[in-house]
């Protein structure tokens, strides 16, 4: 019914003028963003693109967002609605005002997400809002890693007028900036958002002048309506069913200071033209800063849906119209005030991955293979020294807080090709990482390497793209510090598709104490380029601080090793062509050990694959998958096989002509696993591989892994159907039913 009403309303709109207006609006937003990026002091904004200009109707519904960081666009709708609610009467919302807001319980992810929002007036009436938002990594408070309440996380603004009736308020500006460690940096960022809003508001006024307020308003409604309709159309094309995902992370237990695993679970129910995302079952909120507020969770849901499912829709609030989201209060995804949430973007990444996993599998079932990607966010482990720095650089300026090489992580494998190595990050699909030469002009580091992380992409028939690894020397600071978290012994944010592994096993995060003779050895034209090389070559030793402190000093000359996330794999690794594996080994993307252990490809002395040894090793792997499995023999049914939907690289649902019910069957060998009403994993051959065995190595601090890899293979042909991270401490012995298709 709503669609019919929309059609009548939009019939009044001249399609040509509408199109011109829509493009003009987008262009204004881009002009605003360009201004913001050029004025800002944040490297992550200027070069990483972590910002957004967007437009809203008089009530705060998003009409259009431009390119940039999607989290902000989604969040600002909430912020505007709350500002109207709180301040419309007192002190009033007037022409020429601009509000500044950064309360993550209202909008955004953490206090560093700062939004500036300006109403647009036409003939004395408020007709729209423009917003410019970006990431400013300094709000005073405790440095990263130490907060346990939002009060520790610095200034929290619930909507102050930074500009009032067109006059920039120096009293507000001075009061806000001087709560921060680097007032000039924060001040420059405030100015950059004001500059962008000025561009956007002036452009919007021109639109009103040219098209008339009624037309602009109707066009805004249509933009929302269009994306709602297109979203429903997309959903209709997907078979009905329930898709489930589970993503793990770890947090620091405030009492024991040890790493504790937690989970994000998502059930995506697609029925007709609607989608429900239910996060019930996700772990409870945590007594440190690793929580997500509800606005942050919603914003990250929006990122995943926009990137994976609704990429070709106009970026307006309409696309969320057919989507319902359930997030239990008190969970890590909907923390209760005043829980700290500085690391909320990390939790947000898990939300993005959890939703992406469901959506990718849904798209496969809908036949949209080109848009299917495995995970973009898999770390073999997290913990150790992070990338949020304190102290000063050699110019005496405060160190820019974050170093966001994670914006160049590896991307997931697809049914059609391997994942892109060092391809980006979901928050800002068009973002990137900085040149090392530029970093070294600002940060107290001397890089010894930035290279693709060996074994950084997840194995699969199609492999995930590798992220990067780096080894740097602390160089030119008297007081450098870095955040530190306990090593969490299981893959974080990781998932693969249809037998592809959830994560690669490469990468080291550690602090290394240099040997005494490093300076002398450098003079001989030598240095290590990975943490392993540094240790093996006697350059340095891994140093683990006792007691897992929140932050730790980094002495001049010490080394820091880090790596970024890789992509998940697609399909069974032992089905990958052996010459492709050999080439990966030659290019240094995959180690010989991984090639043999996981891909089953054995190289001869020259590195070329040895066909006989490879065949033997692969047979051995398949055998091991089936070992101990007593396949339940299901009556295969009789008559012609009538497939209904192929929902998995190796599995499909259908029925035998003469049988009553639908069953799940292996595409490769025809083995019938179970009735469609049952979880195929329960009827597959299951084995569990300890993570230490998978990686062939332990954690940097010598600690134990807490998870394992659960493999599910077809009892008929041993093709790998799923490779899941399993962590019984959190989830019990549960075979996650990832695709449930009703008949």
């Amino acid at each position, binding site marked *: 019914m709503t669609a019919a009403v929309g059609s009548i309303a939009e019939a009044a709109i001249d*399609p040509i003028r509408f199109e011109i207006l829509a493009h003009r609006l987008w262009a204004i937003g881009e002009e605003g963003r360009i201004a913001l990026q050029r004025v800002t002091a944040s490297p992550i904004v200027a070069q990483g693109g972590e910002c957004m200009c967007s437009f809203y109707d008089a009530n705060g519904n998003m009409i259009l967002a431009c390119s940039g960081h999607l989290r902000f666009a989604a969040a600002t709708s909430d912020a505007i609605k709350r500002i109207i609610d709180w301040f419309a009467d007192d002190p009033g919302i007037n022409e020429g005002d601009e509000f500044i807001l950064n309360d993550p319980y209202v909008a955004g992810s953490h206090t560093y997400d700062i939004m500036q929002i300006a109403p647009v007036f036409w003939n004395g009436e408020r007709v729209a809002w423009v917003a410019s938002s970006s990431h400013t990594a300094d709000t005073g408070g405790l440095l990263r890693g130490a907060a346990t309440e939002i009060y520790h996380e610095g200034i929290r603004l619930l909507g102050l007028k930074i500009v009032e009736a067109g006059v920039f308020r120096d009293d507000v500006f001075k009061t806000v900036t001087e709560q921060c460690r680097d007032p000039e940096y924060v001040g420059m960022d405030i100015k950059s958002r004001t500059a962008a809003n000025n561009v956007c508001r002036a452009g919007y006024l021109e639109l009103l002048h040219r098209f008339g307020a009624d037309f602009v308003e109707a066009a805004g409604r249509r933009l929302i309506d269009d994306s709602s309709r297109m979203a429903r159309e997309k959903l209709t094309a997907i078979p009905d069913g329930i898709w489930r995902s589970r993503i793990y992370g770890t947090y620091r237990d405030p009492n024991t200071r040890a790493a504790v695993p937690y989970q994000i679970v998502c059930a995506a129910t697609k029925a007709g033209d609607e989608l429900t995302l239910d996060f019930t079952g996700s772990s409870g909120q945590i007594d440190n800063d690793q929580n997500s507020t509800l606005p942050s969770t919603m914003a990250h849901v929006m990122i995943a849906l926009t990137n994976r499912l609704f990429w070709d829709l106009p970026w307006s609030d309409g696309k969320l119209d057919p989507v319902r989201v359930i997030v239990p209060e008190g969970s890590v995804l909907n923390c209760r005030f005043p829980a700290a949430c500085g690391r909320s973007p990390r939790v947000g990444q898990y939300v993005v991955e959890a939703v992406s996993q469901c959506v990718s599998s849904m798209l496969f079932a809908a036949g949209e293979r080109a848009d299917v990607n495995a995970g973009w966010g898999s770390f073999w482990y997290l913990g150790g020294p992070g990338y949020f720095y304190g102290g000063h650089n050699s110019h005496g300026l405060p160190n820019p807080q974050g170093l966001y090489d994670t914006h160049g992580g590896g991307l997931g494998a697809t049914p059609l090709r391997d994942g892109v190595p060092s391809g980006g990050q979901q928050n800002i699909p068009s973002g990137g990482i900085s040149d090392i*030469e530029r970093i070294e002009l600002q940060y107290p580091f001397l890089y010894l390497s930035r290279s693709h992380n060996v074994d950084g992409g997840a194995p699969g028939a199609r492999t995930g793209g590798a992220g990067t690894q780096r080894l740097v020397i602390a160089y030119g600071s008297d007081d450098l510090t870095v955040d530190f978290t306990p090593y969490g012994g299981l893959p974080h944010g990781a998932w693969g598709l249809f037998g592809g592994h959830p994560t690669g096993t490469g990468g080291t995060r550690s602090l290394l104490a240099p040997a005494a003779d490093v300076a002398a050895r450098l003079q001989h*034209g030598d*240095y290590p380029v990975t943490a392993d090389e540094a240790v093996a070559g006697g350059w340095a030793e891994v140093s683990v601080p006792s007691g897992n402190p929140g932050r730790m000093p980094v002495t001049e000359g010490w080394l820091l090793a880090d790596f970024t996330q890789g992509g998940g794999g697609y399909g069974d690794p032992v089905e990958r062509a052996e010459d492709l594996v050999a080439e990966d080994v030659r290019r240094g993307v995959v180690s010989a050990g991984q090639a043999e252990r996981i891909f089953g490809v054995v190289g001869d002395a020259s590195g070329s694959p040895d066909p006989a040894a490879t065949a033997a090793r692969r047979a051995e792997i398949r055998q091991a998958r089936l070992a101990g499995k007593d396949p339940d023999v299901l009556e295969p049914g009789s008559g012609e096989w009538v497939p209904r939907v192929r929902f998995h690289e190796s599995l499909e649902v259908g029925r035998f002509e003469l049988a009553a019910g639908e069953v799940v069957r292996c595409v490769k060998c025809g083995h019938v696993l179970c009735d469609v009403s049952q979880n195929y994993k329960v009827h597959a051959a299951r084995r569990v591989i300890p993570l230490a065995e998978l990686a062939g190595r332990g954690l940097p601090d010598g600690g134990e892994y807490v998870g394992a890899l659960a493999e599910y293979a077809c009892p008929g042909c041993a093709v790998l159907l799923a490779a899941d991270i399993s962590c019984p401490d959190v989830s019990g012995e549960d075979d996650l039913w990832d695709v449930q298709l009703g008949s």
Partner: protein
Amino acid sequence: MTGDVRYTIGIDIGGTFTDLTMVTEQGAVQSTKAPTTPDDFSIGVMDALAEAARINGISLEELVRRTDVLKNGSTVATNALLTRRGARVGLITTRGFEDTIFIMRAVGRVDGLPAEEVRRVAYVDKPEPLLPRERVVGVHERIDAQGRVVVPINTGEVTVAIRRLVEDEGVDAIAVSFLHSWRVADHEQVVRRMIDEQYGDRNIFVSLSSDLSREAGEYARTNTAVANAFVGPAVHRYLERLSAQLSALGFSGRLLVMQGNGGLASIDHAAPISTLQSGPAGGMFGAALMSDSMKHRTVVTADMGGTSFDVGVLSDGVWKYADEPIFARLRMMQPIIDIRSIGAGGGTIARVDPITTRMSVGPDSAGAQPGPACYDAGGTEPTVTDCNLVLGYLDPDFFLGGRKSLSVERAERAIRTNLADPLGLSVLESAAGVFDIINSKMSDLIRREVVRNGEVPAECALYAFGGAGAIHATSWARELGMSRIVIANTSPVFSAHGIAMSDFLRTRLATLTYVAPFDPAQLNRDLDALENDLAMELAKDGFNGTPQFKRYVTMHFLRQTTGEEMPLPWERFDGETAGSVGELYVEHYRRLYGPGAAYEKSGLAMSRIRVDAVGSIDRRAADHTVVPTTLDEARHGSRRAHFDGDLVDTVVYRKDRIPAGSTISGPAILESELTTIVVAPGTSAAVDSLGNVVVTV
């Protein structure tokens, strides 16, 4: 009788045509075209020369002998990059950073893609690299950001690296790029010497990143070194072939190459990669000359072709260089004139979305094959050209001077089926809609570029060129409040003409890391060093005169990571100007971003210096064109064309027969073989003595 006429010839090899403009010592200008021959570009050039000789009734040998200077812009480098067909290149780089050109700062995945494609995040992949990972060799060496040697170069490894690349990998070109070589180039030069020593006899092309750029940013600088090596042999081969053919015909003049910086260099000393975008750069130089003679302070150039729409901006005759321009999806670090493009041209396709019934125009293009529906070559989707035909702006029988006839019926059918019926509009309304939408998109790009340069659209003169530019220009001008449109007489060969008129130009940009208060002595030393280098380069190019230097600085507030460039109004710094440069910058900044944006309290820094060294080549002002006709004789019937919602009887003129000094009020259409100028009602077109048309909106 013409025995003494001497020529300067400008050549612009474009994707489809090789354009030629010849200028006599007296300033007489003539132009012609020949099809481009991508397998061997020199053939197209020789064809164009032969055609020019034929027009003048002289032999090719005669023409070549009378040519003093042949100035050549080409797409050889661009073509090699686009097709990924180039030299077998090896790269020697700092150990630990071998993956830099594959990591591509991650942003390489989306570089060079239109916004519509970028959004399809699960689908978009990185471009194919110019060389495989196996041909990258790292050697231990390290220079820090301040230029101090932290790790001396390991020459033993260099020897092995060179041998491996040459002997095992069989490379014919080696690129060298080390971290912070923009600051200290010693280690890169060591490698060059060692290649010379080891394989001096093998004619290996060597490309050092520090020779090509002195700016910080290793990804784009390394790409540039690699791309220079990749295209180098192809560019050299082309120039050698051309040079040999000219010599065989008795050519004794100078053969110069156009660079993307907007000026010339000698064929022996131009970096091959510097020739990227040399054609459009010629156009910008031509526009700069024209703005000088027409006294236009700010100019926006708009070039509308078949698939792309290119916009450039001139302020006081000065252009900016692009920050890390992207070619064939790869970021470069070269002084290349900042010209921005979107996919919008005659071939751009209009569609209606089946779900929302939204009409979109572009960015997809019908290209040359099958082309617009009206070409009747298999294209069924409506394009901008189809709409221009239906709207009466194009003459179906006089397209490309009548060499191609257009099918109105095909165009109408494509529009009716794909647009008019789904939208419930008439064919004419739909075509007018496409026209308005594409114009609006192009206006959005023009506006963005003008504003980005700190100028005001309404104050700019609009120079329109390209086949379709003068059909659409009035719409852009009206949208942006511009009052003057200039369509040069040479508009169909605007780049070739600009190249024919251009000077020697060497450009250097260098990263600085100075914080206020600035040291005038240090700044002067930097200027001295750059100007000395540039003067030497000009001398090597064969320029014997006194170079003119133009100086620019890029500054920023202390914590900002990007800055703005402004011209420096003095030659050298002293105690006073080292301070007042800051005030100058704050003023400049306010003009760009508005009064509240500057934040002096944060302090100022200087991040880049740019020096352009011009070596002027004598040229005559263009000759007057005398058309011995009256305006009535220039009339060529009339047809119905669409203006303001109606089809209106519109007088058509043959543009080349319009006498100088004529003013024509719209509605009118001025046609020549390669240009159609639409003069809308309420506007008027004046033709000057050079055949340029100025439309007053």
